[in-house]
């Protein structure tokens, strides 16, 4: 017989949900609606003169070749950061999961980058790669590579990818490690007895079993790369040189906060919102099917 707790009070569920709903309304839905409204207005910075311009802001944004270039930068950047940080995170987790001396120390140390504020991590990487004062930057120039991320777009993009990935590796490492530890030992032992090599055991047993975590991390990393890397880019390159590291997010910031053009900035936020909807839908539709739970 099924046991169920039944509350007769019809209002109670709503009351219990209310705080959460209120937070979502105030901090997510309402600002989002404001952005939609602002995206159709043209306003001076002080808000003294407002005109309704319909889709002019969207047209201005989408017809700009720089916006499309920025979209391309964002795609390259997000994919690279996701791939790099997940691969490194997984590799480190597999290594740390082994029976080695001082494993806990490694685990502890590998978590540190996550505790570093984005701006600080940006400055740390700047000290390493600065062409005139950075340790690596100077060595690169000594061996004949004209390293200068302030002048070469590819160098700058590489640098922000490295810095942004480095920060996210810890997060991935933590989740992968937890997932690896939940893989049943019996399965691995059975496979080992059947003579499967460690590589084979990893790809045939471990990897499929941790796929829910991988899927979760894929989403989290994409969202991180799209929205959470502002601090790193801001501290390292400020979007330059020549827009080489200007992601969609950074561009929305530049237009809204630096250039004080709230209309086009809001239009970009709305576009970003749509991109996130699309991305999440696609991921659930196609990627999740292949995931073994």
């Amino acid at each position, binding site marked *: 017989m099924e046991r169920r707790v039944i509350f007769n009070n019809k209002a109670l569920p709503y009351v219990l949900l209310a705080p959460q709903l209120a937070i979502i309304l105030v901090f997510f839905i309402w600002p989002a609606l404001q952005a939609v409204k602002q995206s159709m207005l043209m306003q001076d910075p*002080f808000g*003294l*003169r407002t005109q309704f311009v319909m889709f002019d802001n969207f047209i201005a944004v989408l017809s700009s070749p720089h916006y499309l270039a920025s979209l391309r930068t964002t795609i390259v950047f997000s994919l690279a950061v996701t791939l790099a940080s997940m691969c490194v995170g997984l590799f480190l987790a597999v290594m740390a999961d082994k029976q080695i001396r001082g494993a806990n120390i490694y685990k502890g140390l590998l978590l540190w980058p996550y505790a570093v504020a984005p701006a600080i991590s940006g400055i740390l990487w700047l000290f390493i790669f600065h062409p*005139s004062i950075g340790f690596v930057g100077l060595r690169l120039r000594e061996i004949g590579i004209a390293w200068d991320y*302030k002048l070469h777009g590819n160098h700058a993009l590489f640098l922000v990818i490295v810095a942004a990935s480095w920060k996210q590796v810890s997060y991935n490492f933590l989740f992968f490690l937890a997932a690896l530890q939940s893989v049943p030992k019996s399965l691995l032992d059975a496979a080992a007895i059947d003579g499967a090599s460690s590589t084979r055991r990893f790809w045939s047993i471990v990897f499929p079993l941790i796929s829910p975590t991988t899927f979760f991390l894929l989403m989290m990393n994409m969202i991180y790369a799209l929205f959470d890397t502002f601090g790193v880019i801001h501290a390292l390159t400020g979007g*330059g*040189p*020549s*827009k080489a590291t200007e992601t969609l997010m950074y561009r929305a910031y530049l237009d809204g906060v630096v250039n*004080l053009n709230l209309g086009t900035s809001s239009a970009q936020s709305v576009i970003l919102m749509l991109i996130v909807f699309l991305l999440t839908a696609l991921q659930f539709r196609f990627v999740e099917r292949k995931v073994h739970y």
Partner: protein
Amino acid sequence: MEKRTLLCLALVAILTVTFIGMSPVAQTTARPIRVLINGAPLTMEVAPVLRTGRVLVPMRAIFEALGAVVTWQDDLSIIRATHRQTALVLQIGNNTAWASGTRRRLDVPPVLVENRTMVPLRFVSESLGANVSWDEATHTVTITHSPVIAQPPANRIPITFWHGLAQPLGGILEGIVADFNASQNQYEVQASFRGTYPDTMVAAIAAFRAGRAPHIVQMFEVGTATMMAATGAVMPVHQLMRDTGVPFDPNVYVPAVRGYYSLSDGRMMALPFNSSTTVMFYNKDAFRAAGLDPERPPRTWAELRTAALRIRETNAASIGFTTSWPTWAQFEQFSAVHDVPLATRANGLDGMDAVLAINSPLHVRHVQMLMDMHKEGSFTYGGRDAAGDAIFVSGQAAIIHASSGLRARIVRDAKFDWGVAMLPHYEDVRGAPLNSIIGGAAFWAMTSPGRTAEEYRGVAEFFRFVSQPHVAAWWHMDTGFVPVTFPAFELTESLGYYSRHVGTDLPYRQLTRATPTENSRGLRLGNMPEIRVVIQEELESAFQGRQTAQQAMDNAVLRGNAILRTFERMNRP
């Protein structure tokens, strides 16, 4: 008995005032001089002295007795004393003194006696509002003054002031604010640091939209167009001063400074405060190592290129020439110095419909030359904004175009012999070199719902205070920003500051070396910070070899004009 003494004293006082004022008394040091302040004898570590009819007393004793705050500046032997609204500036051995911004001639300058600074008693006391009388018979000076009655601070009207100057500049600015607060007891200016200039601007705009704008905000020069377009959000200085009746003369400001913050009809919109300009710093050690004359910095671009190439060839420095603020130095200043427009409509001063003009043959030629220098290795791109500063200070770059404000950092950090010179020009350009234009920031008065006339009066009083010669002069000497008014320059010069600190007057001289034309008055282009970035981006892409100089400038004009049109549309009345 009492009455008679008083009468006698008064008579003697009247007589001696005229007597002392007119004819110098022969030096008589034998008889001691007594000084009475409000009837009580003044105690002094060193006895007063008489020099050609003037009584001099130790400065600490007299200033403290009169309730003035005194500071001593050692390197130039300057005495600064403030007492309520009055500020005195004196210098040992200097016959020129300044009392509340007016130049005064002393027939006996301050002197050193037994290592104590002695100041002329009558000048000091009378300037601080006291009455002085001399009794020849008893050799007694009698001073009467009314002590300060401080009003409790609770009654003061608070005036909020947001600024964008980090330390140490912010601290010096807040010192000026503290001086203002001490000078009167009606208003209390509350200064607070709001981050960089763009941060401060964003904060002020957000506060205005929320109905809580600060009374005063410091805004960088490229934000001028945005502020001017915000009719209703700002209170123009000319209107502020007229409405409140606070005496203020905008004509004391240097034209290159005044023009930047005034309407084309001359009405001043913002109060200029910290202004700088671009100058050329060079490493004299590197010049010597390259066999160049360290006392002959390049005057023209041709000379600069030769020198930079020489420095690279002899490996005297790893970078020949670099620039900070690429747009400000190589376009805004460049256009002013060569008398070519950066944009039409007098660089936007005459209207919001201006278009950029930086794809002119001269601009393209300049970019082409920088590209050629980049290719041959005599020029290295130092990054955006002030990023280039560090590579000069560290000794890597031998020549840099940078803000005159960089001087303080060079003085502090540079471990080499250096010099400062005016910006170079192309010799074949007619009319060049003109004056350069300013950078830096100004104070804007902001409006807000419910702001009272009395609050505006407080703002006006503060503006009047900072425009006084001694305040502007000290800000200039303490920070390295240029003196923004003529009297501030004169004051600084009269103290011998420029002969002691060689080259500190160079930015001022460069700003005032010509009568500004409509190409060198300044600029007022909407969203100028964004246009600066666009120009830097196009330059970067040209230095990477991805486009020609002409293409870079055409693109910059195209993209810049789009920004200008958006601004025009946003601010359409």
